[in-house]
Each structure stands twice: as structure tokens, then as C-alpha cells.
């Protein structure tokens, strides 16, 4: 579903990603771990066609993302750092706007249903300006579920969510995988990564230093590997 080969991204002389190759088949989730500045967000932006790589190849759902980014955009759902929420619109109006922009069904009853799924139905007519960071994140997740994306790219999706929200999101991601979707999830939460992901990838200094199946990894082992690899910058062979 996602195949990235030799991705490189540099801003002037600063290299942010170097020779990043990864594969996420349908029905799988890849957790992207790494310290701040490791290149996780840049990699997600490249995968989401928001940034063009300086070198490398990227195929998403069979489409060459560098040649036809627009076709890829119709296949992905992205929750980035920004929530893409207009502060002066209500929750329902925000969803209506993004639904029409994406060419999706924008009937109010359907939008309300989406808001109900993220437990924002009680705040349907409230302006987003009054929402907490967690509520805006829920609204962003409701936006992503408006369409039927084949790929989800999520940057710290659990941050700001309360316990109930985290539980809902975990279940949603498992259901998305079960329907054959692919997920790339950048996170600092090792427990959530291991609970949802099929593979764990550690990025350090813009390079992949570890790419392992999550099933064989315990939380303690992942912690130990993370500390060792981020400190030394060594790479563990796949």
C-alpha cells in the first residue's frame, strides 16, 4: 500500500531525511518513533505529498506520489500537528466545509453521525474557538473519517485525547486496519505504538535505525533499543 524507496529530503545544506525506505502493506500499521528533530514529521509530510522529496521514489496505493500527488491526496487521510480547524466555524460547519472540499457527501445527518462517533455531538453548534486541544483533535479525526481513505498518516494522534478518546482512537485504528487500510503513526508513546502497530520504526538523525515487527518487541526491549540507537546512531539490520 505504501512503498518508499531511498527517500531523501534536504533544506539547503541541512539533510532532514537520508535514504529512508519503508513498506506498509494493506491492513498494517507502522509506528514511527524517534526523538524530536529525528525527521518523523518531515517523513509524514513527504508521505502525505505536502513536501516533495529531494530524491527517492514513493508509491501509495499503486500511484506514483511524485508524478500524481493529487491522485494520492484522494486516497489519504492526514491528521498532522495542525488540526485544520477554522476557529470561527462550528464543529458541524467545519465538517461541512471539508466534506464539500473533498467532494464528499455533506448532508447534515451524515456529518452529525461523524461527530457522534468522536463524541462531539453535544457540541455540534459550538464554535471551535471554545474547544480544547483534545476536542479539536477529535474534530480532526472526524474530518479524516468523512471519506474512505486507504491510508492514514497520523502525527501524534493520541496527544491531547483523554482516556476515552484514546480508547476510541485505538479501536478505530484497529478497525481501519481490519478493513485493509494502511497506517503510518508518528508517536512518542511506546505503549500505544505497540498496541496498534505491526511494525516499529525508529528514526534518528533522519535515518531509519531500526525496523522490526512490533509483535516480537516488548515495551522494555523497545525502550532499551531506542535509548541505545538514538544515543549511538547505529543501525540495526532488518
Amino acid at each position: 500500500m505504501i512503498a518508499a524507496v531511498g527517500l531523501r529530503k534536504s533544506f539547503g545544506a541541512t539533510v532532514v531525511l537520508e535514504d529512508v525506505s519503508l513498506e506498509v502493506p494493506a491492513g498494517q500499521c507502522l509506528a514511527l518513533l524517534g526523538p524530536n528533530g529525528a525527521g518523523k514529521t518531515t517523513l509524514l509530510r513527504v508521505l502525505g505529498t505536502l513536501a516533495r522529496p529531494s530524491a527517492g521514489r514513493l508509491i501509495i496505493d499503486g500511484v506514483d506520489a511524485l508524478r500524481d500527488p493529487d491522485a494520492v491526496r484522494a486516497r489519504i487521510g492526514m491528521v498532522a500537528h495542525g488540526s485544520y480547524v477554522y476557529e470561527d466555524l462550528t464543529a458541524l460547519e467545519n465538517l461541512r466545509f471539508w466534506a464539500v472540499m473533498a467532494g464528499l457527501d455533506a448532508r447534515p445527518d451524515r456529518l452529525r453521525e461523524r461527530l457522534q462517533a468522536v463524541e462531539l455531538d453535544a457540541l455540534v453548534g459550538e464554535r471551535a474557538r471554545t474547544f480544547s486541544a483534545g476536542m479539536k483533535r477529535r474534530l480532526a479525526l472526524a474530518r479524516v473519517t468523512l471519506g474512505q481513505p486507504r491510508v492514514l498518516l497520523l502525527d501524534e494522534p493520541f496527544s491531547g485525547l483523554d482516556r476515552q478518546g484514546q480508547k476510541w482512537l485505538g479501536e478505530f485504528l484497529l478497525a481501519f486496519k481490519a478493513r485493509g487500510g494502511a497506517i503510518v503513526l508518528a508517536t512518542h508513546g511506546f505503549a500505544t505504538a505497540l498496541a496498534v502497530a505491526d511494525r516499529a520504526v525508529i528514526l534518528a538523525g533522519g535515518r531509519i535505525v531500526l525496523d522490526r515487527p512490533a509483535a516480537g518487541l516488548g515495551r522494555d526491549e523497545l525502550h532499551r533499543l531506542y535509548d541505545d540507537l538514538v544515543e549511538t546512531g547505529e543501525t540495526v539490520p532488518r
Partner: protein
Amino acid sequence: MPAYARRVGIVLWKDLLVERRSKESLNALLFFGLLLLFLFQFSLGPDRARLESALPGLLWLGFVLAGLLGLGRSFLAERENDCSEGLLLTPGDKSAIYLGKLAANICVMGVVEIVILALFGLFFDVDLARGLPGLAVILPLGTVGLAAVGTLFAAVTAQVRARELLFPVLLLPIQVPVLLATVSATQVALAGQPLADAGPWLQLLAGADIVYLVIGLLTFEFVLEG
């Protein structure tokens, strides 16, 4: 309704709704317009002959300065919560976003221009009635010309740190044909002459509008992609 038209419509709806609720641009523009009229009134004094020759230029100076203020802010809402990134991710022709934003800017500028025009007549004791049919043609044409380039450059400068400085520096030189044509045509209209006397200026204005609109439609996607 075709998807393209729906997307133009929803951007227009969103921008006008945000403006109606925040009133950020409209309040600032109306206050600014009022301030300009006060200043013009004081600086020109009661000399009627001088006033009449300066009126068209003053009127458009007010529109352009208010327009600079309003157009420059039109992409600020997109910066909040990275909404411009979300717009970039929406599939389809991005020129629909440009057209929606342009239409919203024209609506806001139109309201401000009507208020400034009414106050103008009041402050300077000008009989606007005889010039109104002509102004009804000149104002929309001039506003489209201003907004077409202004909307594009507002997108160009939205992510730049010195955007308040860069925006007018980029916009004003390109607006020279529009400003020349609107001021000259307005002079004809306010003098009560038939609009046909301003024919060449109106042709220049319409031509500039078409060129600016086409450039905006063709280049907006590249601007948004950065």
C-alpha cells in the same frame, strides 16, 4: 451542481461566515475609510475647484488603501491550525479555492466601497446621483482588478514574515493600469459626462481584469504548493 462550483461556493460561504462572525476586516476597513475621509477633508479645505479635480483620485486612494488592508488579511485565517495545508490536501483543481476567496474579497470590498462612497458624498457635499450609473460600472470593474491580483499576492505573502511590507510592494506597481483607468473613468462619471467618453479607459480596465483573473486562475495552484 458541479463539484468545482460547489467548492467555489463553500470557500465563499466559509470566508463570509468567518468575516461576519469575527468582523476583523470589516471593522478595520470601515474605521480606516472614515479616518481617511476626515484627513482628506481637513487637508483639502473648502476650495471647491481643487476638491473636484482631486475627488476621483481621493476616492480610489481610499478604496485602494482599504483594499490593501483587507486583501492582505484574507489568508490569515488559513494560517490558523495549518488550514492552508488542509486546503492543499483536498483533491481537485485548486483554482476553485482562488475563485471562492476572490469572490469573498470582492463582497467585503464592495460593502466597504459602498459605505466609503456614501460618506464621501456626505463629507464633500458631492452630488453622487448623476455619477451613479457610471460608478455602477467602474466600481465593480476596478474592484475585480484590485482583488484578482490582491488575492493571489495575499496567498504568496501569507507565509512570509514581512508580509505587511511585501504585500503592497508587490501589489501596487501591478495595479498601475487599473488605477489609471479607474481614476480617469471616475472623473468622467462624477463630471456627469456619458460613460462612453471613458470608453478607452473602461476597455483598459476590462482587459486588465481578464488578464489578472487568468493569471490568478493559472498560477494559484503553484502558489499554494509553495
